């Protein structure tokens, strides 16, 4: 840490950002919570023409008791589980095979990473078509491709399955973010000193032993970062679901979509409550992580 100086000049420099964030992040989180504990469920109340009253945590209790919202939470869990597992496995594998300099390595990396530059809305356009649920004669998209390569049995309803449809939406998410995970792991591999490899080779370690016992353990912190980054993105997923499916579709709804639907129908209280639930879920993941990285930084 740098020598500690007078507090005022730097704080003055930070002031515009701090004020703005105090209002737009912390102030609005508080305001949102305040709305979520009222009975603000109608357009008239939302526009202030009719009064609202305090109802405590009733909205939260009500939401968590409905099958509808439980289904959203279940979808979120399924989606996040598959998205995380898929992108971690793919990203790690890609990093592993590209980890050492080889001819064309740069091109491979560029291809794996490019989906990251595209918006979920744009990729949703093509994935909606690829994940078309028609089968047999009318099949297009991936179902048609399965027919063409003789894997007819793999044809399925994709995101139109009521219980597991959300998993189909995790496929484009994995497609889009595995390259990101790869880039993280590649940076991790590159951060390992060459001496470690050399020492292991001197000791007669095989390629597999070198990776398994020397290099992989070094990547644990990167893996944790990747899990947290992808995990929190997944919990907030909205764009992709909206562009492939629809807000009104029961089979693919998640809390972020519910928030939008409640808002659209001027049920501000429930909309705000869903937002707070989402914030709590994300905070449970993020706050320990921020604490952990901060501590690590200080002890170094």
């Amino acid at each position, binding site marked *: 840490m740098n020598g500690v100086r007078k507090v005022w000049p*730097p704080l003055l420099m930070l002031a515009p950002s701090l004020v703005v964030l105090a209002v*737009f992040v912390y102030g609005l989180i508080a305001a949102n919570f305040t709305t979520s504990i009222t009975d603000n469920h109608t357009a008239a109340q939302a526009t202030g023409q009719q009064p609202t009253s305090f109802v405590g945590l009733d909205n939260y209790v009500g939401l968590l008791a409905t099958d509808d919202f439980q289904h959203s939470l279940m979808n979120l869990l399924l989606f996040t589980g598959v998205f995380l597992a898929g992108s971690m496995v793919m990203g790690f594998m890609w990093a592993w095979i590209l980890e050492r300099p080889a001819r064309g390595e740069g091109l491979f990396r560029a291809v794996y990473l*490019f989906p990251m*530059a595209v*918006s979920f809305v744009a990729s949703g356009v093509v994935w909606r078509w690829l994940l078309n649920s028609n089968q047999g004669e009318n099949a297009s998209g991936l179902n048609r491709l399965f027919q063409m390569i003789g894997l007819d049995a793999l044809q399925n309803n994709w995101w139109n399955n009521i219980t597991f449809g959300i998993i189909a939406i995790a496929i484009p998410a994995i497609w889009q973010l595995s390259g990101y995970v790869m880039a993280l792991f590649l940076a991790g591999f590159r951060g390992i000193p060459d001496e470690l490899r050399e020492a292991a080779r001197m000791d007669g370690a095989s390629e597999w032993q070198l990776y398994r016992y020397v290099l992989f353990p070094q990547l644990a912190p990167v893996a944790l970062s990747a899990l947290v980054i992808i995990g929190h993105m997944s919990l907030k997923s909205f764009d992709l679901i909206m562009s492939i499916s629809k807000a009104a579709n029961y089979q693919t709804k998640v809390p972020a979509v519910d928030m939008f639907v409640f808002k659209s129908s001027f049920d501000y209280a429930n909309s705000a409550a869903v937002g707070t639930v989402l914030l709590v879920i994300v905070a449970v993941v993020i706050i320990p992580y921020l604490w952990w990285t901060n501590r690590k930084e200080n002890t170094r």
Partner: protein
Amino acid sequence: MSTTALVTTSRPAPPSGTVGSAVASRATWRTIRYVIAIFFVIIVLIPVYVLLVTSFKAPGDAAPTRAWALPQEWTLDNWKAAWTTLWPAILRSFQMVIPAAIVSSVLGSLNGFVLSRWSFRGANIVFAGILFGMFIPYQAVMIPLTQLMTGAGVPSGVPSLILLHVVYGIPITTLIFRNYYASVPHELVEAARVDGAGMLRTYWSVILPISIPSFVVVLIWQFTNAWNDFLFAVFFASSQNGPVTLALNNLANGAMLQNYGVSMAGALLASLPPLIVYILLGKYFVGGLMSGSVKG
């Protein structure tokens, strides 16, 4: 853990001074790596193939049976139609993204400098407080945010979106600059201080001149993020005044009759600016990714 790893280019291969069998096993391993790598290139490019091929097909050609075939007749009609529909929105996206990226980068640079090289007691806590804003789900502020923006009279569309991308961009831009400046030698700042330079003077004459690479990283990051944003667009713009993501979504999902060819040409058009940035300035793009994630 390195942070603003401005591109990890390949380093020289380690000297191979091992015995024959190890060399042979490494050659096998290399072949396997190539086979796997090429297989996944094909998988990753499948959606691109579909986008491209479909965007050149005439409406009748997009029948399910021919879903994976090349166009019977190549046509530019879809591209023309998509361009006619989307260009006003593309223009608005530029109007939104450029100021948003510049303003949030400047703020992030000032904050990052103060937090890393002109620090003060409690700076870490202030930084953590800023950083938290990067991770919150915006759904958790959306209701009061819409009320605040309406109440303050910020016009819907581009003006609202510029403001929001600046405000919610501050945490990430601060993070990237802070990590970058943390690698600047103390001596540079100290020397300026010994010469009697104050905070602003030090920033202006010492820090700013060496900030170009991180400005490129941050500008690209903000450009891409704001360009690809859909959530804020849905809540703070309409199809008449919104960015291209919103217009594209209306084009692809709104029409009664699905015209996949036009939608896919539109998706490609809407993706071109970030893709061009990625292709031309790829290493800075990756730099942003890294610093956007790994802290410390």
